[in-house]
């Protein structure tokens, strides 16, 4: 087990190296982040400035900061589902199966390595954008909370996409699974607006989903930083990381048994 974890840490470091070696793509992602924030901040600033009588009351805090956080997480995510689909369907899995370490753990560790690089680069971009626009930043404590919640959030998101990717053992294409997860991240995760805007029953449901663990619980720290909310967020994220990891392992084992029996998919 210790050696498995050591190999996973080395794979994570390889992922970091890969993330850094593709710096031009990373720079493009950061520029795209700036573009998105320019558009979304214009929208949310207008909504905040021209409140409509009778409209749903907006949550306290600056919604632009909320979106800054959710986009930071979203843009850092790896395309682990595409990697799984490619390896599973092209037979690229075979060299990995001939090794004594688990492909799933190695691949996820490697993907997480690249994700951490993107998270850091996009984080610096977010700070630069705040400074350049003269917008008041977050409270000091919020940065600390977000450093932790951001890493947990991308881990939840990566595991959600990993579940979609592992469906390649049974489905010809994983695009439908990917689209469903993306839409649910948008709707129940609260990509552009916090799910606290929803009716109470839907808010409560949404908060308990992995999609909120991926985006909402980190984003809400930008609206109202609080130690209590931070702990609740960590608990939800930890729970979903555990459950999704178990689901990934179950799917992997079932898929692997199929490949070993049938010689491919």
């Amino acid at each position, binding site marked *: 087990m210790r*050696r498995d974890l*050591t*190999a996973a840490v*080395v*794979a994570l470091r*390889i992922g970091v*190296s*890969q993330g850094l*070696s*593709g710096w031009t793509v990373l720079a493009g992602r950061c520029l795209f982040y700036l573009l998105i924030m320019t558009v979304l901040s214009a929208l949310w600033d207008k909504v905040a400035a021209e409140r409509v009588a009778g409209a749903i009351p907006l949550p306290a805090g600056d919604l632009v900061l909320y979106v800054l956080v959710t986009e930071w997480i979203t843009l850092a995510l790896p395309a682990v589902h595409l990697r799984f689909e490619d390896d599973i369907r092209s*037979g*690229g899995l*075979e*060299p990995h*199966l*001939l*090794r*004594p*370490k688990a492909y799933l753990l*190695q691949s996820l560790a490697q993907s997480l390595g690249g994700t951490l690089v993107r998270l850091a680069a996009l984080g610096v971009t977010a700070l630069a954008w705040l400074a350049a626009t003269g917008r008041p930043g977050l409270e000091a404590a919020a940065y600390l909370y977000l450093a932790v919640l951001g890493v947990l959030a991308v881990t939840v998101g990566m595991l959600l996409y990993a579940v979609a990717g592992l469906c390649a053992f049974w489905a010809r294409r994983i695009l439908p699974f990917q689209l469903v997860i993306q839409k649910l991240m948008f709707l129940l995760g609260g990509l552009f607006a916090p799910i606290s805007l929803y009716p109470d029953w839907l808010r409560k449901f949404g908060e308990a989903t992995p999609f909120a663990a991926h985006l909402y619980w980190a984003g809400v720290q930008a609206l109202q930083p609080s130690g209590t909310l931070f702990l609740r967020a960590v608990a939800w994220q930890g729970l979903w990381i555990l459950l999704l990891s178990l689901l990934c392992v179950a799917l992997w084992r079932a898929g692997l048994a199929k*490949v*070993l*029996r*049938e*010689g491919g998919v």
Partner: protein
Amino acid sequence: MSPAISVKNLSKAYRYARRRGGFFEAFSPEHVTIEAVAGVDFEIGVGERVAIIGPNGAGKSTTLKMLSGILEPSAGEASVLGLTPWKQRKALAYKIGVVFGQRSQLWGELPARESFNLLRHIYDQEAGPFARRLGDLTERFGLADLLDQPVHRMSLGQRMRCEITASLLHGPSLLFLDEPTIGLDVTAKAAIRDFIREHARDHGQTVLLTSHDTRDIELVCDRVIVVNQGRIVVDQPTDQLRRRFLGRKIITFQSAGHGVSLDLPGVTRRPSEAHATILEVDTRLTRVEQVIAAALADGGIEDVTIEDPPMEEVIADIYASTHAT
């Protein structure tokens, strides 16, 4: 000494659903079973270098996959280095090295050195012995200038040298090679064949190789197992097989004018095109250079290509010969 590989009545049948035309038939597909490997038996001793050859779909890769543990057989037994491959896949992985000519096990964007370092941890290798082994392989394979180069920027030949190095870094006693020289130029092929043969000889390593290139078999292996339709057709030393079946070359002469016409023993003309004469040469009777010299003396030659006969032809000859006797 117990054999490195022992196979008894090993079989693999694939079952798949064949869709039939019509709406209602789509809900009740017909199931078809294909027997890829049909009860093969063989043993490979420690230090032997053996080729499994056969036409496409003969069952070579399926056999290799079962012996390396990534495919469960339908029936039969196999023991590889004392382990049952499909039941002890991870334990076996420490003892074998595998190279797929058409699949990379390295990380494309990274320098080879980083891939090798990750493999050290994947195979739980101590730093000292690993560094020594990498040093030896680097020197033997001339990799010093390649180690810090991203793998995706390497030529196919350079990449294959790195692939083989990667498969040997954990010191396996058995090497599986699936089409290791596919797509390489003549020089790269020669370098890889020399390396595999010498490394296996120096380290007492057992080699099991599949290839479509008869030169891989002649120059690397001392025994050949020919499979066809999932069954072993021939299992004999390479020398014996070479004498009977591997002594032919196909020479194609391109000429602007008239075709090449030679009257030499063991040289026969194959169906040719307008400006291309294709000759089949039995090299036991006439050497290739004699044929070329004679053709050049005839004049008008613009280009020459020398090839081995396609593996399918060699197998067909072997198959016909074994069924005639």
